[in-house]
């Protein structure tokens, strides 16, 4: 008997339940393979690289140097600056996008003329290509001919004319908050619209003020969606590269640090070690957050 017919024979002898189990495995196999090839293998290989010195030529094998890359990083002031920047950037751009998203979503709970159009407009920052947004922001805040410069410095006198705000961590945070608030807006609005009106009516009859209704009904109902938005944005922001890199070259965050180390200085062992550190920080954050904040 051939191998194929033997296998078929064996399959036919299985119970329905066993057959279902095998069918299940067969169905997820392609995605498991895909994930293994594109995620698991690179991750493990990266883990290995982080303990080696990677030669420039692919003809030579990486040289095992133990923890040396990690020791170098800990004493590297550039790495520490990038680490600090990343935390500040992640925290504040995440809070910024979520709070703006919540505020705008609240404006949309009331019926008003042109609401559908306004909703579309609000989504624009998120829809517009990153490269276009980054360049437009560069122009807006240009110290010589930027319209932002003209309005806020020349007209309102909020800061000295001629100051270049673009290359600061603060501006990157503002840019990122602006760009991603529609994401928070969309998710929060969906939840807001499903809060039953009766709850607000009951609270009105009970004499609760507008603020009390927001605090006691809206916020508790939004708790999970806000927490989820915050978590997702945290993961994205922590790994950020393109948004910062396209907007300014002067604010190194870890993503930029990895790119520069790995592909400008060709210290790929150190770059690998940096990304392992990022991964550990992220996993720690997610674990703590999910356990104590979201309480899943």
């Amino acid at each position, binding site marked *: 008997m051939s191998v194929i017919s033997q296998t078929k024979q064996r399959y036919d002898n299985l119970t329905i339940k066993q057959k279902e189990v095998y069918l299940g495995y067969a169905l997820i196999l392609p995605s498991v393979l895909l994930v293994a090839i594109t995620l698991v293998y690179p991750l493990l290989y990266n883990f290995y690289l982080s303990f080696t010195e990677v030669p420039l030529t692919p003809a030579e094998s990486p040289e095992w140097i133990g923890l040396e890359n990690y020791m170098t990083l800990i004493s590297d002031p550039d790495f520490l600056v990038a680490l600090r920047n990343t935390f500040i950037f992640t925290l504040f751009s995440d809070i910024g996008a979520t709070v703006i998203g919540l505020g705008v979503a609240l404006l949309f709970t009331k019926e008003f003329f042109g609401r559908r159009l306004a909703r579309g407009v609000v989504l624009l920052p998120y829809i517009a290509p990153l490269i276009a947004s980054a360049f437009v922001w560069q122009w807006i805040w240009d110290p010589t001919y930027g319209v932002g410069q003209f309005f806020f410095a020349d007209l309102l006198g909020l800061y000295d004319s001629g100051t270049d705000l673009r290359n600061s961590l603060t501006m990157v945070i503002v840019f990122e908050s602006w760009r991603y608030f529609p994401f928070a807006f969309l998710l929060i609005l969906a939840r807001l619209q499903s809060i039953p009106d009766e709850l607000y009516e*009951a609270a*009105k*009859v*009970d004499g*609760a*003020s507008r603020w*009390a209704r927001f605090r*006691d*009904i809206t916020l*508790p109902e939004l708790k999970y969606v806000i927490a989820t938005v915050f978590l997702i944005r945290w993961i994205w922001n922590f790994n950020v590269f393109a948004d910062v890199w396209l907007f300014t070259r002067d604010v190194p965050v870890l993503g930029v640090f990895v790119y520069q180390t790995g592909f400008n200085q060709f210290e790929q062992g150190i770059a690998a070690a940096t990304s392992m550190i990022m991964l550990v920080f992220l996993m720690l954050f997610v674990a703590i957050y999910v356990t104590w904040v979201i309480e899943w």
Partner: protein
Amino acid sequence: MTEVTLDGLTKVYSDSQGTETAVEDVSLTIEDGEFVVIVGPSGCGKSTTLRMIAGLETVTDGVIEFGGEEVQHLTPSTRDVAMVFQNYALYPSMNARKNIEYGLKHSTDLSKSERQERVAETAEMLDIEEVLEHSPEELSGGQKQRVALGRAIVREPNVFLLDEPLSNLDAKLRSSMRHEIQRIHDEIGVTSIYVTHDQKEAMTMADRIVLLKDGKMQQIATPERLYNEPNNLFTAQFVGSPSMNLLDVSLESDGEDVVVRHEGSQICTLPATGGLPDGDTVTAGLRPEHIEISEEPGDETVPAEVVVPEYQGKTNFIHVELLGQMITVRTEPDVLPEKDSTVHLSIDSANLYLFDTQTGETLKHRETTGRESVRASQQS
């Protein structure tokens, strides 16, 4: 002491699609401590009326007075009303205790200990002391309903409003909560307005019933009066279960009596008291419980064919065909004729209602026995 008066209360909704009158010129006075039920089919404007009284809906026209004071421009909390909602509307993030306390916290100056005391008293009255620390999602339907009632009672409001509070409960729980609500009303004696689409709830609970149709008030009366002396065909059909049978009949006066004929056959005779149109076609109404059924023909009986004998237990509903018209007869439990058999109906003219076919107005209602009319006149 709060008497509630509605005067010409009207609500018109308008948008780009046009205008819609939800409530039209409703005027009535609810006495202090009275339990009034607003009833009607869906879309009749009963909830809108209640929501206008609560202050959750603006008033297009008309006046709402509490104890002689106009309140239609006031916010819900300054009217000092409490409301129970159909879906309970318990605050999901607060436990039962906090739900009940919430209104006290926001619309009274009571100290924390006074509030706690009031909550404890209310919880005792409603028998929910054990679940006070539970969150709404941990409560059963009946418990949620009690907490929602507690939240309203605890405030000792001027007026107590209930918007279909029992419609989310199963049948058994519904009847026990009905008694509970009546007991609470007897205990606290607050003017209460209760909205339902269920005529049975209205009949069993109300001091007086307000019947609405298409935003217009049809009748306001005690349950007995509504049942015995409906103003019109709609009221007559809405009240009572199964609903009243209708027959197109012609009236012929022979001097002494008025003969009521359906499809040419005499179904009963009325003493000629005058006022009834002679020779005209009118609509006759007969309640299922007012028709007698027997196997043998007698004087003034009409033959009919049994289509569906419906066994119910303590009473049976016999659906019969009377000269091409389906009618329902309610019988004693031991009366259950076979399908397709011929039975004989006797119709007592005292229990016959007559309505104008065109306008639906009542021409003749049931002649009530002494006991019922005494009670009806006492209450109205």
